[in-house]
């Protein structure tokens, strides 16, 4: 993933504010990059524009060879489905579905229902979520929910995983387990971008970048 000169502004007139102002970032396969910064600094916006959930005002983004900033909605949908996995702070599991049904859902979107289901089961086994698989989110702990959400992000075998404050709603032990899991995802050959406040993220990240005044600065090489 390569992003360069990203600009994104919100508001109008005097209230207009550049959340991203020339931010640039490149993440390679097997690399885990942590992005830190104060609340409101634009960390989530950075992930959203990389995932094509929001549009940049200027700059270029390339994910798995595709120019995200130039893609239409359909192509963006395909890109998210096949090449990008998203993990959210609030897990965002569908409450009516069981753990395994939540995990397999993105696989159904690309028509790979049977293969997706077997990948989902394998992931669930690998992540130690066998018990959680048949239960609904309301019956699971936060850590279990977030690990299911990570399994959902991985089910279509994306090349890029974007995690937005994945430990924000978890206790220390669960948070640590999730960070370790993301590390193992990167070790599996995927690029991982982790936006977080969690000071422990530095321990698992290959690089830590700070987003300040709309730009990314290296904290540790």
């Amino acid at each position, binding site marked *: 993933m390569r992003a360069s000169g990203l600009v994104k502004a919100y508001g109008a007139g005097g209230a207009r504010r550049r959340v991203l102002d020339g931010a640039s970032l490149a993440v390679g396969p097997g690399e885990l990059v942590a992005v830190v910064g104060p609340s409101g600094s634009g960390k989530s916006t950075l992930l959203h524009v990389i995932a094509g*959930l*929001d549009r940049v005002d200027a700059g270029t983004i390339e994910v798995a060879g595709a120019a995200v900033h130039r893609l239409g909605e359909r192509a963006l*949908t395909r890109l998210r489905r096949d090449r990008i996995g998203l993990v*959210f702070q609030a897990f*965002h599991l569908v409450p009516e579905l069981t753990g395994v*049904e939540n995990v397999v859902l993105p696989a159904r979107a690309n028509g790979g229902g049977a293969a997706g289901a077997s990948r989902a089961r394998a992931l669930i086994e690998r992540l130690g979520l066998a018990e959680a698989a048949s239960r609904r989110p309301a019956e699971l702990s936060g850590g279990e929910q977030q690990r299911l959400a990570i399994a959902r*992000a991985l089910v279509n075998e994306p090349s890029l995983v974007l995690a937005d404050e994945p430990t924000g709603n978890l206790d220390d032990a669960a948070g640590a387990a999730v960070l370790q899991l993301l590390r193992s995802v990167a070790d599996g050959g995927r690029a991982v971008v982790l936006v977080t406040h969690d000071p422990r993220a530095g321990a698992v990240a290959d690089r830590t970048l700070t987003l300040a005044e709309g730009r990314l600065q290296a904290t540790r090489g």
Partner: protein
Amino acid sequence: MTRAFTLAVARIRSRPARTALAAVGIAAAGAMAGAALTVSVALTTGFDRAADRADLPDVIARFNDRAPSVVDRRVRALPNLAARSLRLEITGVHLSGRGRRTGKGSLEVLVAGRRRGYAVVEGRDVSDRRGDEVVVERGLADQFGLHVGDKLHIGQITTRVVGIAVGPDNVAFPLARTARVYVPGGPLVRRFGPAPVNVAELWLRDPDKLDEVLTQARAVAYGLRDLRFITRGGVRATIDQAAGLIVALLVAFALVTLGAAALMLAASAQAEVQRRLRTIGVQRALGFSRGQVTLQHAVEGALVATPAACAGVALGALAASGPAGDLLATLNELPPGAALLPWLAGAALAIVVVVAGASAWPAWRAASRPPTEVMRGGDLGRPRRARKRVPAGRGYFALGARLASARRGRLAATVAALGAAVAVVLLMLSLAALLDRLKEDPALLGRRYQLTVAGSIADRHLIAQVPGVAAVGERYFVDGADAFALGQPVRLIAYPGDHTRFESPPLASGRRVAAPNEAEVGLGLAQALGLEVGTTLAVELQDGEARFRVVGIDRALDNEGRIAYVQPPRVVGADPGLLPSIAVRVAPGTDPNTVAARLTALGMPPQRAGGATTSNAAFLGVLADVLRVLAGLTAVVCLYALLQGLALTARERRGTVAVLRATGAGRRQVAALFTGAAVAAVVPALLVGVAVHQWLLAPAVAGMAAGYADLPVNAGAGELAIVALGLAALGLGAAAWMTRRAGREPVVVGLREE
């Protein structure tokens, strides 16, 4: 109150699209109510309105031609008489005008009296000083395209139309057999000398003493031959023979439709409050009282509902006024005009009250819960314990169905509103189909013969030998009046022997006729005259009275059940000039047209035995139009209810949809999701609607009609297919609409919501 008003206005202005959608739904329900009210009020009050406007006489007496002075002397001798008018009625007159002609004209010569018994609806009445002026009845004017000032030729005489009138003592031409033209008698008398009269119109001081006047009139009527009376009540009964049953059914529709509209409005208003749960929680947290929150929602509901309800009711009234007006014109009745306004205003007010109440009640309930709980959103009802997972299909379609089913209360309200609408539409379509069959299918009335021949009895054996003829029989048919209540018309049908070989309406009670002194009466007649098995039916005929003992009661539809099956001897005894026709029953599998051709070749051209209302095909067509207008409006309401339910689900699950889109769900998957949600409502609604129709509405309507007949109002495969396909199309349309809306929203907006 002022603060509530200000807040309500501010909220409405902040969500114009949402408000517009709610207003459209209210307007749709208002249109249903407006249309239903317009039809029912117009039809139920049409006769009285026209009769009052036309100053319809209490009694109309018809007799053979006599000198006016003789008739006037007898009439003046009657007690309780307020006014009288005498006319000469000449039928079979040739009329032509504006390129159209008919030989069915009826010249009504106004010989004496100032009161008319008809209402001039356009132009003016005839003047007694001008001999070339005529007033024509509206049915004739419509058929010929006549306007005031046009020329009308009566035989060789050219006259000028100065007015168009409605005479509610009969249905309009061509539904009636004659086209009436009113001409002043004075100029004719001056030109040709004294004219006889054959109609006397009587207005009574006390109409309640009608029977005494009729008894006295019979006593003083010596010398007047072929004397027949018809009373205002009798006219009404006659008109009702053409429309009463259908009018009653339309009124029933109106009530059902109004109920469905009220249910939908309540569901819709509750959905609006559901959307605002968080706001209610914030308001309560900021110190708003329950009363303030409730009042604010009530005011907001009323503000949105008032213009929408007024517009919807007006639109519905406009849409239905055309077909209802056509129907009234066919019946020679007048539209309600401004008299409808209080009803429509009442309907609009009721809608506003329902919306305000339905907005206030859930707001009150929500405001009763802890603010933090309300701010978290969820359903209006108390939180329930998690249910065990219901096994369901996989994929986005099944997920949509699950999302919709997760809110059981709302799904139930949507299903109830849709189901009620489906039941109403099914009933309307079934009745429209029934009307078509009534036009075509004599068997529906219990008639088993297909042809009649106006030959002599001697021809009977000849006809019986024609290939394809299964049975022939003499059929006597005569209209009389009940001898105890002279204003009540009675139709007698007589067959020698077993009449069920030719006409077999279902027997409701008792047994079939087996002797000349016995009668089977229709339920309509039994109810009108208070007849039961074992009582006596006395019928006043041409030359005397015929009495019968009632042995059975039929569910006969013909003549609205005001009918009696007897054997010929007593009928012929009381009316010796009566001649039978020959009823011909065609063998099963034989085309009646083939037999008709064979009979024609023998010099005995037959007539087809149509339904009860063969001559009223246009009338039935108008009725079917009215039903279809109501069905169309109800379908619009279905669409709205679906959109409302889906929009609410989409609004509530905005975050879930955004997450699905963020994780790769494209337009197709979102469409599948909303289709699943629509199907979750549509399928049970269809089942509920069909069940309500088949087991509740249809039996109720059939029961209501049971006074007249057995009506097969259950929906057929065709109607069910139309409704199922229509509902499926509406569901797909609603899902497509919601998919489009969801696709327009940036994913990040939904994610923030989640």
